[in-house]
């Protein structure tokens, strides 16, 4: 590639801490997202183990009352906002620009700001453990339990402001994804050829943009209620606690799809590659993602069937919720049809992706019980629901995320994750997961409510709870193996070629890891599987015609004269602005002195950001 006629850009300080703090490269930002999510996953996982330890036997005393509620709340909040969402944002950041043949995200500095806001927002939330107690009202924070009267400490304030900071991060990253995917696709890459992971990331970004304002507004009103004496959620003064639930779930249910759609996208990439077939029913799978996104905004009150809404309202939301099952089923059938008739290779990414389908089906089917109003009156707020959403979010999202990490690890690092450890990890995670969460269906049916820190003996709940706890530790062991595999493979993993899996999409056309500018020449796309079709031309049974030969393997349209590549300059100011907002939030909860410091950091960062040219060498030419 070095012999290329293309003017390769100057690469800014590639090494050292400073280069990471100032990076605007979507790949490094993606890695930061993933590492941050991995760190918070350790915390959230430990919290889960504490919960399961407490519930292993009746009347246990490991984690009681207030402490349990804090850990419970932080487990949910962490897994949703600090693990699943950011790791998907991280994979999206790393992979989507490569997949669509872009050099970077549309707004590189905004992208950097997003990741810093996520990392600092996550630290801010967890700081609450050290500064007077974590939030304790559940991840949904129902009013009026969150009112000052009932939650006097600062935990709820950390929760409100932490989620606001994280919301800012999500919104900026979504704006970036929408712009990038709609505007920066390689020539020939029409929406009708867009890889499914990019499709689902696009739909997810729209969901975040429309859902996030609802919770931001609700959190803002709650903050006013707590500190300025307003009464939005205070029934004694004419407010309404149900207003909170509507605002929260108008965000909260789309949030579920925000966490599952990109995961479905990953699976829609992995299954075809390891079956050596195109995705079956591409159009149906892509459009069903859009359909899930739309219908996802009309189902929120199925979380509220027991609040006393009129029957007709409940029936509407029941029907809408069942309707979501149609596009979901379409996906499942198409995934199975993708494997059907393929040449399936049992590599670790495939195992996790296939397990995703198997487990997500269970989560989807148990969801039907929750959509049926009279059954929901019985099982809502029980362990049946806990089982259901862990089958969708862990059996679903998390299995797909792990599949994606095994799949793209060679692209990101140039090394494979170890296959034998990978299979051990898979076995532990699959068995541990089902042992933990399958019994919870029965616990719910047997009358065990969720979010209770203890239970009496003699209700028939003992053995299943113990089983679930044993499963949780097996599951945890699986993640120990996973992290060990990552650590080991980073230094001693088998070297991976540029296209280790015989891939379909553009990211496999560039080197592993890719250069900062991704592609020396932007590839031109003629089909849905541009990488595959360069290897297997014409005859669907053809053997590979050529190894990937970088830019020599030019396709029609790629021999046009290249323009010089300009990469955006690194900048510290996104980090400074994110730090300013975080310090400001800290001031609102702890000492007022942090407020002016935060504002100062924010203002200086903003001013410097605005005056620093994005492309210094381009600016100096003019």
């Amino acid at each position, binding site marked *: 590639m070095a012999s290329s006629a293309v003017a390769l850009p100057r690469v800014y300080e590639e090494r050292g801490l400073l280069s990471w703090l100032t990076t605007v490269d979507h790949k490094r930002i993606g890695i930061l997202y993933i590492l941050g999510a991995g760190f918070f996953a350790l915390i959230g996982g430990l919290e889960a183990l504490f919960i399961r330890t407490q519930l292993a036997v009746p009347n246990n005393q490991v984690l*009681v*009352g*207030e402490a349990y*509620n804090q850990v419970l709340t932080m487990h949910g909040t962490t897994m949703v906002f600090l693990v699943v969402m950011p790791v998907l944002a991280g994979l999206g950041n790393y992979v989507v620009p490569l997949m669509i043949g872009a050099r970077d995200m549309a707004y590189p500095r905004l992208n950097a700001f997003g990741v810093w806001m996520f990392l600092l927002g996550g630290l801010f939330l967890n700081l609450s453990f050290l500064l007077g107690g974590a939030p*304790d009202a*559940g991840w949904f924070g*129902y009013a*009026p*339990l969150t009112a000052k009267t009932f939650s006097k400490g600062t935990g709820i304030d950390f929760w409100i402001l932490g989620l606001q900071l994280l919301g800012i991060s999500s919104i900026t990253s979504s704006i970036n994804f929408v712009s990038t995917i709609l505007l920066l696709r390689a020539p020939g890459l029409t929406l009708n050829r867009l890889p499914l992971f990019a499709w689902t990331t696009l739909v997810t970004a729209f969901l975040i943009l429309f859902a996030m304002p609802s919770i931001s507004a609700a959190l803002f009103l709650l903050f006013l209620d707590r500190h300025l004496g307003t009464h939005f959620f205070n*029934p*004694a003064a004419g407010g309404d606690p149900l207003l909170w639930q509507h605002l929260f779930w108008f965000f909260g249910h789309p949030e579920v799809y925000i966490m599952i759609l990109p995961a479905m996208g990953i699976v829609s990439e992995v299954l075809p590659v390891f079956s*050596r077939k*195109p995705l079956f*029913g*591409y159009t*149906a799978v892509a459009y069903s993602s859009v359909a899930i996104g739309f219908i996802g905004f009309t189902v929120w009150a199925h979380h509220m069937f*027991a*609040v*006393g809404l009129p029957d007709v309202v409940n029936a509407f939301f029941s029907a809408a919720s*069942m309707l979501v099952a*149609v596009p979901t*089923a379409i996906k499942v*059938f*198409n995934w*199975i*049809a993708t494997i*059907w*008739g*393929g*040449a*399936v290779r049992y590599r670790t990414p495939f*195992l996790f992706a*296939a*397990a995703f389908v*198997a487990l997500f089906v*269970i989560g989807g*089917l148990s969801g*039907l019980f929750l959509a*049926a*109003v*009279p*059954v929901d*009156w*019985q099982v809502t*707020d029980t362990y049946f629901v806990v089982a259901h959403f862990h089958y969708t979010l862990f059996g679903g999202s998390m299995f797909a995320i792990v599949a994606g990490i095994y799949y793209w690890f060679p692209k990101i690092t140039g090394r494979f994750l170890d296959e034998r450890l990978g299979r051990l990890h898979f076995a532990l995670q699959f068995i541990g997961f*089902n042992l933990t969460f*399958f*019994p919870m269906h029965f616990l719910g*049916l*047997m*009358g065990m*409510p969720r*979010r*209770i820190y*203890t239970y*009496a003996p003699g*209700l*028939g709940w003992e053995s*299943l709870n113990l089983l679930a706890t044993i499963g949780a530790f097996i599951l945890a062991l699986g993640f120990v193996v996973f992290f060990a595999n990552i650590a080991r493979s980073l230094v001693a993993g088998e070297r991976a070629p540029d296209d280790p899996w015989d891939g379909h999409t553009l990211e496999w056309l560039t080197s592993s890891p890719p250069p900062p500018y991704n592609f020396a020449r932007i590839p031109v796309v003629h089909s849905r599987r541009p990488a595959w079709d360069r290897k297997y031309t014409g005859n*669907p049974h053809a053997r590979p015609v050529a190894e990937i030969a970088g830019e020599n393997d030019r396709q029609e349209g790629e021999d046009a004269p290249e323009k010089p590549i300009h990469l955006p300059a690194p900048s510290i100011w996104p980090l400074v602005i994110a730090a300013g907002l975080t310090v400001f939030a800290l001031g609102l909860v702890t000492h007022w002195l942090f407020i002016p410091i935060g504002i100062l950091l924010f203002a200086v960062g903003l001013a410097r950001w605005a005056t620093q040219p994005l492309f210094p060498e381009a600016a100096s030419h003019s």
Partner: protein
Amino acid sequence: MARIRGAARGWARWGAVGLLIPGVWLTGCAAQSPSILAPVSPKGRAEAELFWFIFLITAGVFVLVETLLLYAVLRFRARDPHTVPPQIHGNNALEISWTTATALGLAVIFAMTWRTMAATSAPPADAMPVKVTGHQWWWEFEYPTLGITTANELVIPVGRPVRLTVTSADVIHSFWVPQLGGKMDAIPGRENTLWLQADVEGVYHGQCAELCGVSHANMRLRVRVVSDADFQRWVEAQRAPAAQPVEPLAQQGYQVFMSKACVGCHTINGTPAQGKVGPNLTHVGSRTTIAAGLLENTPENLARWLDNPPAIKPGSLMPRLGLTPEEIQALVAYLSSLK
């Protein structure tokens, strides 16, 4: 081969667990659980029937889909890593079939859902009214037509419908007695209606189902379903004013109760104690449990509770009052006498 064995092992284990758990569950729940699948009320039965109906459909879909998936994964494993299979991009007939089949199945489930809702939603006209108020962390039951106020134990006559008006004094709670039917949220500032009817005498476990603070797990309740005659006797007893203490120790307990903080929160009808914060204690001696169903109502447990309530129910709004052992013994004697 090792690969396929690894995957098959996972599936086999999973299958074994799948078989084991229903076994454990069936023996467990038949014996002792407040299971929603062991309903004793018309509404609970309708809900359980709908559950089993959906279970039948989803179990069929589950078996079908997992079998297809497993078959595809096992059958189409590549023997030669360089095999390139036929490149099938899709099939419109298949897409239309599974979309239609799914939609039809869901339409049937929704129709049954609607039918069950319509059949169970409105309380019968002759239902006995009871007002249920959730408090952090106990339940208050008022029988407006009978002039009775009690706590944590709802006593109802067998076979007679009861209309519950459910609300809350503080945060959101949720009233739930699984064997008597679905739950209803207790929301401050709102009055929700729930009706239930128990067809079998007995004691049914229930508890708060909405996270309501520190002792959410300790907010339990019991529904005692009794015969008509027993209910009449219970009503008579509850409507009587509080028993006058007779024994000297109980009289001493009366003095302690009236002179300490107790009166600020509790009501005992016919005495100066008219507090409204805590449970009405007029007939506390007649209840089978104390502390929102956490403890059997025995003198020893009552003494433990009076000594240090937050040790038993964390966060309890009844603080540790610093009572002496003598005062506690006297109070126990008095409260136990309030049959």
